[in-house]
């Protein structure tokens, strides 16, 4: 589905954020991107939809090379890629509904979006998505009136409103509490499974990546140093990615979180599917 060929990014300051990253993402696979901060995770994700312009290499989305596109074509390709952000990145002063509908901006002409006159199908779909993420009653609230977890659900609904073929997810849970983190991760993986959507998920929490991801890619200093199933993420591999560290301590907290998981499962069952 998505293929990166020796993608590199050097910032104007001379810092090399990515060097020769190659990656293949098949349909329906959820990839966790781990690595220390500054390893280039965020740059990699933003290169895919060219929020950051890559310096060299190719990005193939279903056969189309995204790197060579002009502005207009880039716009039509961007709408195929849904993005979910670390701090939700909702437009705070717009209503929840407007935020979800903003996922359709790549599809509607300017004057229609300006007058908020979206197609009936779009509006129906937006309601359906809000229902799916459990926020049907909040459609007319302003985004800044919601809690963190609710905002991230709106962010997910906005990305899905694009009818994407790929999801880019940037640290989706970094600003949430442990319980909400699991709810959001569960929702994400469920949605990807329902739609057979591939996703690249930036994640700084290794136990969380192990639990929810189907495949893990480790980045260190802009290079892929690990690419395998979560089960293969040994202590050795972690040291390769993060450098030396006491991993046993981390594992202990891992089991603690597993206990809280059973609680969240009950909560999640209340969210209408």
């Amino acid at each position: 589905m998505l293929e990166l060929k020796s993608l590199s990014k050097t910032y104007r300051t001379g810092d090399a954020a990515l060097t020769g990253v190659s990656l293949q993402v098949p349909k329906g696979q959820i990839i966790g991107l781990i690595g220390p901060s500054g390893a280039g995770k965020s740059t990699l994700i933003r290169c895919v939809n060219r929020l950051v312009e890559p310096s060299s290499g190719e990005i193939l989305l279903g056969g189309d090379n995204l790197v060579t596109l002009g502005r207009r074509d880039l716009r039509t390709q961007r709408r195929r890629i849904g993005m979910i952000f670390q701090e939700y990145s909702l437009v705070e002063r717009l209503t929840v509904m407007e935020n979800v509908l903003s996922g359709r901006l790549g599809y509607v002409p300017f004057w229609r979006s300006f007058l908020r006159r979206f197609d009936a199908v779009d509006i129906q779909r937006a309601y359906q998505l809000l229902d799916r993420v459990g926020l049907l009653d909040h459609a007319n609230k302003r985004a800044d009136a919601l809690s963190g977890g609710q905002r991230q659900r709106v962010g997910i609904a906005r990305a899905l409103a694009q009818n994407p073929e790929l999801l880019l997810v940037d640290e989706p849970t970094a600003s949430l509490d442990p319980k909400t983190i699991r709810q959001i991760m569960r929702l994400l993986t469920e949605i990807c499974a329902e739609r057979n959507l591939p996703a690249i998920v930036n994640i700084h929490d290794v136990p969380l990546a192990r639990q929810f991801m189907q495949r893990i890619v480790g980045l260190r200093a802009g290079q892929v140093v690990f690419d395998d199933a979560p089960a293969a993420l040994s202590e050795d591999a972690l040291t390769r990615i993060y450098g030396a560290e006491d991993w046993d301590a981390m594992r202990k907290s891992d089991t603690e979180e597993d206990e809280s998981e059973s609680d969240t499962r009950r909560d999640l069952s209340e969210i209408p599917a």
Partner: protein
Amino acid sequence: MSNSSTIPAEWSHRSRVTRLAIWAGWLALVALFVWCWQVMTETTIWAFVWDAPRQAGDIGGRMLPPEWSYLPELMQPLWDTLNIATLGTVGGVVLAVPVSLLAARNTTPSVVVLRPVALFIIVASRSINSLIWALLLVTIIGPGLLAGIIAIALRSIGFVGKLLYEAIEETDPKQIEAIRATGAGPAQVLTYGVVPQVMPALWGISVFRWDINIRESTILGLVGAGGIGLKLNASMAVLAWDQVTVILLLILATVVVSEWISAVIRRAII
């Protein structure tokens, strides 16, 4: 503990060099002041200055009691003044919005050409008082309300433009990035990402400027640009100081009321 001989017996607030520099700075300021004073008062006729208290007493005596019967005649010019301020503010805001979009670093289409042009428009408009604009416009398009409205609008561009472009530069880039990521075009990024974030600032700035414009429009009539200033000019020309008192009190009341309205609206927005 510590050897007491290493502890200095003297303590001073600043080092010697800084103290000297500060003294030199003050001395330079005083010298500059004295010199400026000399140059400025070269042409002053001191006889007039010593005569001033008597003049003040004379004028003060003529100002009282106010000629209240003049008040009804002032209502039409007052209405004109309000219109100059309001329509001028509307015009100024309409013109300032595109200028500020060109001036803000994150929305300008070209940093090299258009941004400096927009910044120059803002500085030029800010440095020239509306009374000067009115003076110019009266000679160009003739006396009347229109000159006043345009003068107020031209002066407002810089004020609103500066505050608005600063507000645009302070918008949250994450919200804008998210809209760009959906595949939105530049105009859509503007209306969905930027506009909702700066709307409260725009309203606050406009109301604030409207309040200032009420003050400024009261005197535009002095150069013929309509409003209550025309009456002030006329009354002073015939030395009818008792009418001047009424006009000044009316201006004062208008300013106080407009300040109150502006404060109430701004509080409601925030």
